[in-house]
């Protein structure tokens, strides 16, 4: 019992002190339960779109995402992309100009991302795609933070689909202009 008590104290303290620690009280998966498919294969896009709609969000596909990326409003910040994959994958490569938003640690980016999101006409949120639900939950986070739901779109195919289409990518910080090494 002493070991268990000491281990519990150590564990809760470690989680509290770790910058990557979890907020125990937060519901990281709000809304209807949608358990990831028990398969290695990514679900078909129709299935992903159904899941996105179930959460009250609007799905878009690669062609639509690409059109929005080339829309002149994108340069003016009126169409913006939000990358929900987390710090490390974002640094490796992301859709050029996309804002990073780690929903597990929103205190890092949310304050900086919120005003541009509210000022934009359209906000496209993406994660890795397929089984990945981070884009949906990030869109819900933005909606709960005050971004009107009708502005929010989820790119279900996500980053994997975007890079499979050999579309532009950027490495490092937002607007760094650096192309990822593998794309050179």
């Amino acid at each position, binding site marked *: 019992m002493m070991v268990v008590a000491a*281990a519990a104290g*150590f564990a809760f303290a470690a989680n509290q002190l770790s910058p990557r620690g979890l907020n125990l009280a*937060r*519901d990281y998966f709000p809304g209807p339960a949608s358990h990831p498919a028990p398969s290695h294969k990514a679900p078909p896009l129709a299935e992903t779109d159904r899941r996105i709609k179930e959460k009250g969000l609007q799905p878009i596909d690669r062609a639509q995402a690409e059109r929005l990326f080339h829309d002149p409003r994108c340069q003016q910040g009126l169409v913006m992309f939000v990358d929900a994959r987390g710090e490390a994958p974002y640094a490796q490569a992301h859709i050029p100009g996309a804002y990073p938003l780690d929903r597990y640690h929103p205190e890092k980016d949310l304050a900086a991302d919120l005003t541009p999101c509210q000022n934009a006409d359209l906000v496209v949120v993406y994660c890795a795609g397929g089984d990945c639900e981070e884009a949906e939950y990030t869109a819900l986070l933005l909606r709960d933070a005050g971004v009107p739901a009708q502005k929010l779109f989820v790119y279900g195919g996500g980053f994997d689909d975007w890079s499979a289409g050999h579309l532009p990518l950027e490495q490092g910080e937002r607007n760094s202009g650096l192309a990822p090494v593998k794309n050179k």
Partner: protein
Amino acid sequence: MDFGSVAARWLLGALFVYTGLEKGLDPVSFLKLVRQYDIVQTPFLLNSIAATLPWFEVFCGMLLLAGIAVRGAALTLAGILIPFTAVVWHRALILQAARAIPFCAVKFDCGCGTGEVFICGKLLENAGLILLALWLLAGRGRQFALRYSLSNSNPSSSPSQS
């Protein structure tokens, strides 16, 4: 001298420190993996398991490496390993049915801190770890232990007597 038992204690300790750190330093990934098991629905419980279980492992692993409260640490680790092995097995059966493949061909990231693994190898490994933990629980691995038992009344608590 029983070097085999000491080596077993160090092996078990080092393994749990390593796998615990792998998960504890990336709790978000571990949270997503724990969620896949669908064993708890309450966010607080789910978060608590994902946030604390890896550090439990690290703590008990360090106790085993140092030789402090060895039986208590071994019992705690067995208490983690046995139910965890059961849920891994259960998840593998679900995956086997979904993919229509032989049981031993099932490969997935079980949240064990070692990435994707084949299920049969994982179950054998866990069975070995459980046996090691039970062996230590039976009173082995006293050599080079800083404080084998926390109870002062236990004459074997001194390393010089072990």
